[in-house]
């Protein structure tokens, strides 16, 4: 395993600070090209950019649907005195 001391590499450090915008597609074309040119020549930064992107990808990939377990939902509606408004299918599942 290697470590990279980014403070001693001006170009690499510069890249690091723009990475978030780069990955989110919020960076201008010129800066994008600059990053891509740098990455082609700098193996550490290539790995860094890849693992940074992959980190975000993995979080997207493993994010569950915004679903709520039916028992949690049932208790929520009861707590809010809204049990009359529970859809039948959800209410039945529990009792």
């Amino acid at each position: 395993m290697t470590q990279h001391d980014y403070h001693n590499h001006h170009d690499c450090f510069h890249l690091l600070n723009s990475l978030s915008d780069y990955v989110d597609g919020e960076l201008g074309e010129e800066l994008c090209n600059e990053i891509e040119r740098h990455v082609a020549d700098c193996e550490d930064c290539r790995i860094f950019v890849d693992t940074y992107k992959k980190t975000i990808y993995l979080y997207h990939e493993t994010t569950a649907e915004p679903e709520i377990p039916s028992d949690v939902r049932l208790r929520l509606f009861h707590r809010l005195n809204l049990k009359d408004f529970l859809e039948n299918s959800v209410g039945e599942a529990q009792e």
Partner: protein
Amino acid sequence: MNQQDQTEVEFSLEALQNGDQAEFARVVATYSGYIYRLALKMLHNPQDAEDVLQDTFIKAFHALPKFQGQSKVSTWLYRIATNEALMFLRKKRPDTVSVEVPHQNDDEEASRPLQIVDWCCLPEDELVSDEAREQLDRSITQLPESLRLAFVLRDIEGLSTRETAEVLEISETAVKTRLHRARMNLRESLTAYYQGKIPESV
């Protein structure tokens, strides 16, 4: 609510302000899943997440007469929920001084050498194994709270930078900075974890 499904449901502001139960029930039905997911990511414990979920909607119900509709219902709920989550975390650890990232550590953090290991090549089933998922969740929990919130809202809930800024009541620049630091932090954690999974790592 989400960049992918940008279909913000329409609610009657008047009905909500009058405390109309049926209308509020629609709000709860629409957003409880999102709020629960946020709470789970913030607290990493289903029981705590359920408490925050319930408290969020109780607070929201009481605040309805004052809701002016200046922000989206979702943004408004996220703001209440993030405050509830932070209060919950503080109650649990009363000794914790501040939710802000300590600034004196900024330089230290920025100058720390970064781990360079190419773990992207690992097969997908290893990257998203049950153990890896657990590690992904644990890494979020270890983030400082303010970074965690920015990350969860942007990268988990899929809010835009502007919406996140609105929820957290900070500038868009601050959102970007926190998000980047959170991602850097998580990348380091995942690198430490996946590194051990690479055969004959040198």
